[in-house]
């Protein structure tokens, strides 16, 4: 897949935002994802540390869950209600690229995944997540998605770093967990939590 969103200077919305210490979040992420040990600056810098933790956190979540063996609850009511919801909103689907024919992904399911991974980030809670997949001029969906996510941050967390970290997490999770390239990420920090406790 053409996926260059992780490279430093050419993200989906132009130059990648920097961490508060001035480092490129995408570069730090890539190094962490590749298993590179943190350098002297990164060991002591809280912003780089957080970016490292994000990358490893996604990796851990993705691989731990893939290796678990569990069955969904065989509850008839849940299944029916899920079927009803799916049926009532038949167009609430994203299009994934496939060489073999039509592939669709439930939009609420995709949003739940992105909320989940952002929720697992240190100092952040995800509130809402909206995913739009604009249709191209020729009527075909271009597969790249625009994500708008609202978050709350722990009191005292650096907001510039939050932006860089959430953006990176959404882009990486979109590609790795969903298979949806992310073209644009809008992050709305709507509230703070934990005032006075830290």
């Amino acid at each position: 897949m053409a996926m260059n969103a992780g490279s430093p200077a050419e993200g989906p919305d132009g130059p990648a935002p920097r961490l508060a210490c001035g480092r490129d979040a995408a570069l730090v992420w890539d190094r962490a994802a590749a298993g590179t040990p943190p350098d002297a600056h990164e060991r002591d810098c809280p912003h780089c540390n957080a970016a490292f933790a994000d990358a490893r956190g996604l990796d851990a979540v993705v691989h731990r869950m893939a290796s678990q063996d569990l069955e969904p609850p065989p509850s008839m009511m849940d299944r029916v209600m899920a079927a009803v919801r799916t049926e009532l909103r038949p167009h609430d689907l994203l299009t994934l690229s496939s060489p073999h024919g039509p592939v669709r992904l439930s939009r609420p399911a995709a949003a739940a995944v992105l909320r989940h991974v952002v929720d697992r980030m240190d100092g952040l809670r995800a509130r809402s997540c909206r995913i739009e997949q604009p249709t191209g001029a020729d009527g075909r969906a271009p597969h790249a998605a625009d994500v708008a996510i609202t978050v709350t941050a722990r009191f005292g967390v650096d907001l510039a770093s939050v932006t860089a970290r959430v953006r990176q997490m959404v882009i990486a999770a979109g590609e790795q967990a969903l298979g949806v390239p992310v073209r644009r990420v809008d992050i709305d920090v709507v509230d703070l939590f934990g005032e006075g406790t830290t």
Partner: protein
Amino acid sequence: MTEPDPPVRLHVGDAVVARVAAHRARLVPGVVALRPDLAQALIGIAGTVLGQDRSRPPVQGVSASVHGRSAEVSITIVTRLGHNCRDLAVAVQREVAAEVSAYTGLDVVVRVTVAEVLLD
């Protein structure tokens, strides 16, 4: 002098295709379950209340239709976080199309919808 071969027409039914497709789809790693659509879910409930019609148990989560030499299969799956949804869906398309094609000789187009991603 040999008799001409008697003509044979083999027609493979929708339910055959659906059942083969459902069986193969469940074997793809990452597919946790197949998700029945509304009609299938209601038939399932009716079956538990009224007594199952053993002659035609529905194929949950798969619908198939055969037109001449080609078949269309729609599969709705549930997966779990950790499996790339796109890669999983493409794998299901590939595996199911190959299996149904090998079993029935039909040309198969498989549509896949990922309806849910389990998070925990």
